[in-house]
């Protein structure tokens, strides 16, 4: 099957695939930043002691985690114009991806913070450190180390999820591959080119996560 791959057509469409690849990178990077902001905020709300401030964070995280991204995307895509908010598809896509990934990032950061043994916080208290000092000097430096790998994992998920934006006609890697399928009736060539793009991103991030893990793992805690 692969022997019959029409590489001439694939090369002909290389500029469009490259554009799509860059668009996927841009969409994912922008959404990653948005998701980090939302994730840190939601996590900060979720771990502070006031109950009525915790509630919105919990509702946000659970609502996102219990529904599919595609439904969230359509919710914004078909819903925002109702509210009189007309945005370009690409921006709607970035908002949806940020909202979606932000919930997962909040969970990742929270479990990183909760993984710090209680005794360390107590030791900080007994040496007279304030809450912010304990966070800055004891909890966060250790928590961030254990969060980096799962955050890279979330970045991989984010890149793959961005393919759904093709369904609201944002031109990115998946959509670019479909052009070959539609223009030339060559779905195989289009999908192979698309898959190769995602494989490159996957292996780069996966090895980055591995390298980080090897250099920074805490003794006794992976």
């Amino acid at each position, binding site marked *: 099957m692969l022997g019959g791959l029409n590489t001439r057509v694939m090369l002909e469409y290389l500029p469009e695939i490259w554009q799509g690849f860059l668009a996927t990178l841009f969409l994912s990077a922008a959404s990653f930043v948005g998701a980090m902001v939302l994730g840190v905020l939601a996590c900060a709300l979720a771990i502070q002691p006031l109950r009525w401030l915790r509630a919105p964070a919990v509702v946000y995280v659970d609502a996102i985690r219990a529904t599919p*991204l*595609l*439904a969230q995307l359509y919710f914004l895509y078909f819903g925002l114009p109702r509210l009189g908010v007309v945005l370009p598809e690409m921006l709607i896509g970035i908002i949806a991806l940020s909202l979606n990934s932000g919930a997962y990032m909040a969970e990742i950061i929270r479990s990183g913070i909760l993984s710090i043994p209680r005794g360390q916080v107590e030791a900080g208290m007994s040496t007279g450190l304030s809450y912010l000092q304990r966070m800055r000097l004891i909890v966060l430096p250790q928590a961030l180390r254990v969060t980096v790998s799962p955050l890279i994992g979330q970045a991989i998920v984010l890149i793959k999820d*961005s393919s759904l934006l093709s369904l609201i006609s944002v031109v990115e890697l998946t959509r670019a591959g479909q052009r070959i399928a539609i223009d030339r009736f060559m779905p195989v060539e289009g999908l192979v080119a698309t*898959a190769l793009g995602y*494989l490159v991103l996957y292996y780069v991030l996966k090895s980055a996560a591995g390298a980080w893990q090897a250099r920074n793992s805490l003794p006794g805690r992976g």
Partner: protein
Amino acid sequence: MVWFYLERIFGYWPVLLKGMGMTIGLSLLSLVIGVAIGFGFGIIRAGRNRWAARALGLYIDFFRATPFLVQVFIVFFILPQVGIELSAFAAGVVALSNMAACFIGEIVAAGLKAVPPGQSEAALASGMTRAQQMRLVVMPQAVRIITPSLVGQFVLLIKDSSVVSAIGLLDLTRSGWLIVQSVPNGLLVFGIVGVGYFIICYPLIHLSRRLERRGQAAFL
């Protein structure tokens, strides 16, 4: 105004119900097949045949690296070129259970490796065959370790099943997409669709968290 739209949306309740049924049916069928193949994958991945483990690792990596939407297109558009014609439903089941098997395979392999080697050595010393060691000693302990992540994986599978709507299968997401064409209120329509998914997924998320907490208590 909202009531007007709500009434019109509920005029479409047979479509919503049908979509919900499809989402549940598709997910359940793919879940059963995915778990069965996934455990097979996991045993090979954690097994002694290193070449088989590596070859399977490449296969699994491919499906972990590419978006599910691309995988659905591969099954739906490429398999026919090699003579395998599938309906949208069959294509959905193949794509979903294959991806589930790849993710579950890695979870199972990690679980098997987490069981201390002393366990299978002890089983060997009491005269068990390799199959008996796996079935009676190693696998039951591995299953206990991986149960929370498996339940989490089921939630992902249910949510990923929404992507199959892209090839025209009438699931919960697709039913929302159809209704929004004639009832132009996306917030309400997809709000209701979201509630449908929430009803299915939220109990599972809760279960996964509870199992995780109980598991930590048992292993610390």
